[in-house]
């Protein structure tokens, strides 16, 4: 009895001690809030690690007994042959264990995306058990990831969080509310043979002092903020071009990535002025239509419109007028979709997953077309059919711009 008890004790002790290996206290961790990847001059990969300084982040919170100073985040940059090598090398320059589980954004420099392609990033990101696969990806438009990650932002002390949050805020103007996740890119590109598209980001107004906390003191905010702009088009894993705002919206609508966006018309039919709407509950259905050897796609978009602004001389109180307005917005939606398709077709990048759709619905045709799909895609006809119904006119009925006779 005694023997077995002492044996048990030894086992338990051993277990407890070997167990402690995986333990990391909070003050031994460096929380990585965003990861940037750039192409270095010598062709190597440069990794930027934006890490959180808890003391600086929490500010004058009651708890922090010491520290509580310095910037909220710091960015370490280091070069290596691969992403993993660079991160391992970073062990020599960072004072604590790097933790990736709270990463907010993955920013890739345009150069890297154009020249090296995004494929080399994924293996590390997927294999690492800490990395969140739902991390939203961004492409630093016309700049390096470094520019994005070395900017202090107001309101949100953590620029990564600020960037991430922007997706939600800018959902109306870009149509992207959740961004594009790393996981989706992998699935699109490697699982569904569909070309990825990733939202772009750039610094709004470049400022020489962007990387110092003192920039936060001034009242002007334009020089310390990002803008989500456009969507990068990829062919396989290489960046081939950019879609502008309208095209991005079109892309978002075709792929069903959006459920709420703003629509803005240039005219009110024949009258001068503008109409502003928010479209909600947007639902998209794409149907491949096969006629003999001819493939086309019907894009049905339905949604509910909420009138936001009228600057032309119309009688909003007239239901007939509202019907017309519905027509105007549907037209804008169709235009945006057409533009997006044209841009993608010009670059031969099937960012809408039309190939995948064909495979889903007509696998036998897909088998024939699969090999030359890229050429086929460039010629495919897309017919957008938008039906946005106007639900409400907001808090007023008639507009002040209406000139009554």
């Amino acid at each position, binding site marked *: 009895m005694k023997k077995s008890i002492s044996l048990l004790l030894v*086992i338990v002790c051993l277990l407890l001690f070997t167990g402690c290996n995986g333990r990391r206290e909070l003050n031994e961790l460096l929380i990585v809030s965003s990861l940037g990847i750039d192409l270095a001059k010598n062709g190597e990969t440069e990794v930027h690690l934006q890490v959180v300084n808890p003391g600086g982040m929490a500010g004058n919170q009651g708890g922090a007994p010491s520290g509580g100073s310095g910037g909220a985040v710091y960015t370490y940059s280091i070069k290596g042959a691969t992403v993993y090598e660079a991160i391992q090398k970073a062990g020599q320059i960072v004072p604590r264990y790097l933790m990736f589980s709270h990463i907010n954004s993955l920013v890739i420099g345009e150069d890297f995306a154009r020249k090296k392609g995004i494929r080399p990033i994924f293996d590390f990101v997927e294999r690492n*058990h800490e990395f969140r696969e*739902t991390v939203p990806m961004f492409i630093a438009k016309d700049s390096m990831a470094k520019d994005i990650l070395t900017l202090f932002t107001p309101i949100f002390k953590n620029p990564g969080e600020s960037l991430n949050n922007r997706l939600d805020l800018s959902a109306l103007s870009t149509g992207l509310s959740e961004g594009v996740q790393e996981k989706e890119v992998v*699935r699109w590109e490697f*699982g569904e043979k569909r070309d990825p598209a990733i939202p772009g980001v750039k610094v709004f107004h470049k400022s020489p002092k962007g990387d110092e906390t003192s920039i936060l003191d001034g009242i002007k905010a334009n020089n310390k903020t990002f803008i989500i702009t456009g969507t990068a088009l990829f062919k396989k894993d290489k960046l081939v071009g950019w879609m502008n705002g309208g095209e991005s919206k079109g892309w978002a609508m075709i792929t069903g990535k959006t459920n709420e966006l703003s629509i803005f018309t240039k005219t009110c039919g024949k009258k001068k002025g503008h109409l502003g709407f928010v479209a909600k509950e947007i639902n998209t259905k794409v149907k491949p239509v096969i006629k003999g050897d001819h493939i086309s796609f019907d894009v049905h978009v339905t949604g509910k419109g909420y009138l936001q602004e009228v600057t032309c001389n119309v009688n909003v109180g007239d239901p007939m007028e509202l019907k017309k307005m519905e027509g105007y917005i549907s037209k804008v939606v169709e235009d945006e979709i057409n533009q997006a398709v044209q841009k993608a077709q010009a670059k031969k990048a099937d960012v809408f997953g039309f190939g*995948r*759709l064909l*495979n889903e619905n007509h696998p036998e045709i897909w088998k024939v077309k699969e090999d030359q799909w890229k050429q086929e895609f460039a010629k495919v006809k897309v017919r957008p059919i938008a039906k946005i119904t106007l639900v409400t006119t907001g808090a007023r009925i008639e507009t002040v711009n209406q000139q009554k006779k």
Partner: protein
Amino acid sequence: MSHKLNQWQLLLLTISFLVGSSLLLAPNLTSFYSEQDAWLSMIIALAVGLILNWLWIYLLSLYQYQSIFVIVEKAAGKWIGGLVSLLIVFYALHLCSYVVRNVSNFMISAVLPDTNAWTFQIMLILVSLYTCYYGLSNIARVNEFLNPIMAALFLVSLLLTLNRFELHNLKPFLQQPPKNILQGAYTTTGFPFIEVILLGTVFTYVSKKKNLIKTYLSAIGISGAILLVTIIIVVGCDGYYLVSRNTFPTFELMRAINVVKLLERIEVLVGVVWIVGIFTKIALCFYAGLMGLQHVSKHHRYRTFLLPAGLLVWAMSNHEHSNTMEFTDFVAKNWTLWWFTLYIILIVVMLIGIMRKKNKPPQS
């Protein structure tokens, strides 16, 4: 040490045994071959499993649900029966070691990579031996209490992922060549639907044996349905490409749960569900092995064998395969045939016993 259980407990035990370890692995094992048609593989596997298990329990019922060890001894005589009993013991402990290895693989690859795998193995083995110490009643009660809670947790976490479910991930339907679909079904037939024949040691302790066949087969049906739903949701949310490359796709799926920024990273829930289910499976494997040893050695209780069996399982779990890939490869390629061998041996022995009219209860 008491061995008693009712049919409700048997139902839950069977479900735990089947679902426990397959929950995280089945989506990968099926979709690795049959891609988006993984669900079809699962249905086929379930159908085959039901048929095999029906035959199994029907034969057992002809023996009045005696313990499988008693049956083989009666049917094949003392020596051959003893050998077959030892074979079952080996299969039970071997399976046990695989399941243990599975847990430690999971822990070191997905949760705590820096901790020694032995820690996970030994703790789990010790706690399973602890319940075996008290007997089958204890296993059944613990499982009876935990199983519904775990089921609820799992259901909730599945519901939370539904907002990302997209039907187009399952399309195109039925486009995989039949060979691939059958290949996917092949793996999941053995793991878990043939393994469950180990429960042949348990039926004799069920207090009321009326409708036992129905209970057992419906347990298999329910487990199959759970696995099927899991596969459909996992593939539907993530797409077969991610799933087929992922060691623990269900776990990975839960990682991405994000409901109003409040319920984030609750994959640990599914980890807990899994480990609790696996605990039941390990305990039952141990129990089957220990009962076999008890029977063969003619002891009246098996506590003497607890620690040696535990050590054996621990050693086996570490030495059978050197790395996780070898392990997975073996399971994917050979597991079903490996268990089918035992199945066939036992069926043949029982049939011989019936032909020799050894299945009648002794007249008293």
